[in-house]
């Protein structure tokens, strides 16, 4: 115990964490002891507990005011316990984000201290600048951030937009149009959802290589354009729109395409927005396929994060010539964790910002589909 306090006195946050842990422990013990005491009491005098609502047990042992007070205390105690538990969970859920943000602005020396600091002594914003200007490193070539970001945005937008058009058109045909073999086709599409996607990857890799499509954007977009689950989701949404609307639109002289654009899409807008967001997030997070088929400069932003980051940049920094401060300690070939954390921040923060603005749509989309993209 004394050891714990001593270790904590070095850093304020350790004290805070340990105090929190102690409080949770005490509350847990208190709650448990109340429960155990009640069980013991009930074992000693069974009728007293059983007869809580039993009038025949007699009135002399039952004090309404006291019981009410006890109920109230119990309620408050329970609430306190629940809030502490939730706060602890929320803190643990948030800790990695906080750690990521703080590590990204530490100096490498501070990052490697034996007792890590909870709040950086010195903010080194230079880390971001260095990561931004990584071109090649001695530990494996890595593409520049600008190139990678361009790749990701082009592929993300194209694949989201084209995929959405494809999904809407296919779902419309499956929901509203009559043609021979429609049901068989739909069943066949749904059956492919059962098969793990990894089964396709090997063949697709060979197909792409044989067609000489490596190192293009096409290869990142085409294989994932059709998403059976979203077609299924949207088809069900379209089916819910009453048929009388269609007939009314026909009477007003609207074509099939006009009906799709002017009536169906506005009515299913929430689902479409959710699908758009989830698809974009999925593209942003794609890692395996780009790594397999494309070279470094054609890959996506997640591939870029896994590379090593060193402090050697091939440009003149605004801090003058003295930019390479770690060289004398670690050499220029060793990947630095602070730079990596800065890169991780640059990849993760856009998603968090997106979440803050589109929380409603993302959460609804996720609870419906249960996929990331």
């Amino acid at each position, binding site marked *: 115990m004394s050891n714990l306090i001593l270790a904590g006195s070095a850093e304020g946050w350790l004290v805070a964490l340990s105090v929190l842990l102690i409080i949770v422990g005490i509350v847990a013990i208190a709650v448990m002891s109340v429960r155990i005491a009640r069980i013991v009491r009930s074992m000693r005098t069974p009728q007293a507990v059983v007869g809580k609502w039993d009038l025949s047990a007699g009135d002399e042992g039952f004090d309404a005011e006291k019981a009410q007070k006890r109920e109230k205390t119990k309620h408050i105690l329970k609430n306190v316990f629940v809030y502490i538990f*939730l706060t602890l969970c929320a803190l643990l859920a948030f800790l990695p984000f906080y750690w990521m943000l703080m590590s990204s602005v530490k100096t490498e020396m501070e*990052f490697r201290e034996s007792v890590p600091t909870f709040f950086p002594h010195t903010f080194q914003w230079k880390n971001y600048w260095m990561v931004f200007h990584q071109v090649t490193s001695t530990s494996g070539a890595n593409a520049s951030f600008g190139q990678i970001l361009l790749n990701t945005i082009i592929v993300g937008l194209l694949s989201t937009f084209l995929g959405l058009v494809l999904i809407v058109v296919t779902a419309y045909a499956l929901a509203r149009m009559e043609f021979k073999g429609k049901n068989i086709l739909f069943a066949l599409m749904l059956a492919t959802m059962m098969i793990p996607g990894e089964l396709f*990857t090997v063949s697709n890799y060979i197909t792409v290589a044989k067609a000489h499509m490596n190192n293009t954007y096409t290869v990142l977009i085409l294989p994932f*354009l059709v998403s059976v689950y979203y077609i299924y989701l949207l088809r069900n949404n379209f089916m819910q729109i009453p048929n009388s609307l269609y007939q009314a639109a026909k009477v007003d002289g609207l074509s099939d395409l006009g009906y799709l654009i002017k009536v169906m899409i506005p009515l299913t807008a929430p689902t479409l927005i959710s699908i758009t967001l989830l698809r974009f997030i999925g593209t942003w997070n794609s890692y395996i396929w780009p790594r397999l088929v494309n070279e470094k400069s054609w890959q996506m932003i*997640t591939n870029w994060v896994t590379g090593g980051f060193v402090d050697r940049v091939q440009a003149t920094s605004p801090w003058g010539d003295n930019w390479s401060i770690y060289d004398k300690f670690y050499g220029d070939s060793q990947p630095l964790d602070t730079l990596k954390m800065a890169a991780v921040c640059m990849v993760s923060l856009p998603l968090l910002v997106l979440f803050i603005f589109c929380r409603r749509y993302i959460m609804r989309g996720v609870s419906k589909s249960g996929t990331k993209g």
Partner: protein
Amino acid sequence: MMEENDNIGTPQEPPKKHNKFVQYFINLGARIKGWFVDKYTAVKDFFCGLFHKKTEEEKALEYSGPQLSRGEKFRRGLKSQSGWLFVAPALVLMAVFTFYPIIAAFVNSFKQSYSGMTGKFNGWGIDNFVRVLKGDTGTGGADFVQCLVNTLILTFISVPLSTLLALLISVALNSIKRVQKAYQTILFLPYLTNALAMGAVFATFFKIIGTQNNTETVGLVNIVLGWFGVDPIDWVGLRSPHWQIGSLSIPWAKYVVTIIYEVWSGLPFKILILFSAMQSINKQYYDAAKVDGASRWTVLWHITAPMIMPQISYLLVTGIMGGMKQYSAIVGLFGVTMGQDYDMGTMVGYLYNYIELGQTGYAFAGSLILFVIIMIITYFNNKITKKRTTYR
């Protein structure tokens, strides 16, 4: 009055009960007979329709528009099939990237020493499967049995653990009234992250960074463990402790790290599903329980748990499916080589490993084995969940 009601309500004489065995064959016979009767009537209707001469009235009912020329009929027929035009783009893409690969995987996995690029192979056989299962691929790649064991252990520990924790948190979340939304939002944050990026962050919690310039970071987790007198453990590095069982290595320290990461990243989705399921339970049940004086645990076990059972089983099924396909988190935590000598390899990692080594035959065989394993698990999942989810 009462007696009258009773008379109305009395059930009729129940049908005679055979024993189970006999009943099975009776049902089977009835079913077979039904099948034949259906077929017979269908065939009879068809032939009767062929020889039936239509009366004038029937013809009038059938079609009352103007007579169409052959070309016009054809054009109209084509127009009624225009739905194919709408699904064509999706169909073409699926044919190339979904349907063809399924067939190719089944065919190519039986070609011995198959090279995907040149298409050359050395006779047919089950050589690929034997070598994959034996671990005798002769390329220094990942070991299949090791990958399978890792995947199974990680999945069957982390999925129930995170589901249980999610259940606890959503019960707690459901019982409070203020700032519910705020907690929900914060707890949902980990969902939107990138497995590789966050894996790298988690690795820093556990990593021992070298001892240069007399400074050494043993990592946050080791510091916390140090308070309780536990010596620093190299969780993710080269000296990570492991148990050896024959040729199989059990790197338990790395398992712990991976499971912690997976619980953290798996919780948000599970909380979202369970919490919204709890919110949609009819409040009348709780009121009724309150009137009956049920305790909180009774309410939890006899009302809440049965009502959200479908969601729990859904989460377990999807969680296990996802767990069998895990890969990105391992790369984020342990790098592209999946630990030391692929000792943290997963089944999907195995496939990619062999694609990158250029041994597509083994990759095909591995993907087919993965497919079979997932099908088996799906089958058992369906069997178990059908029994449990009676409240759907």
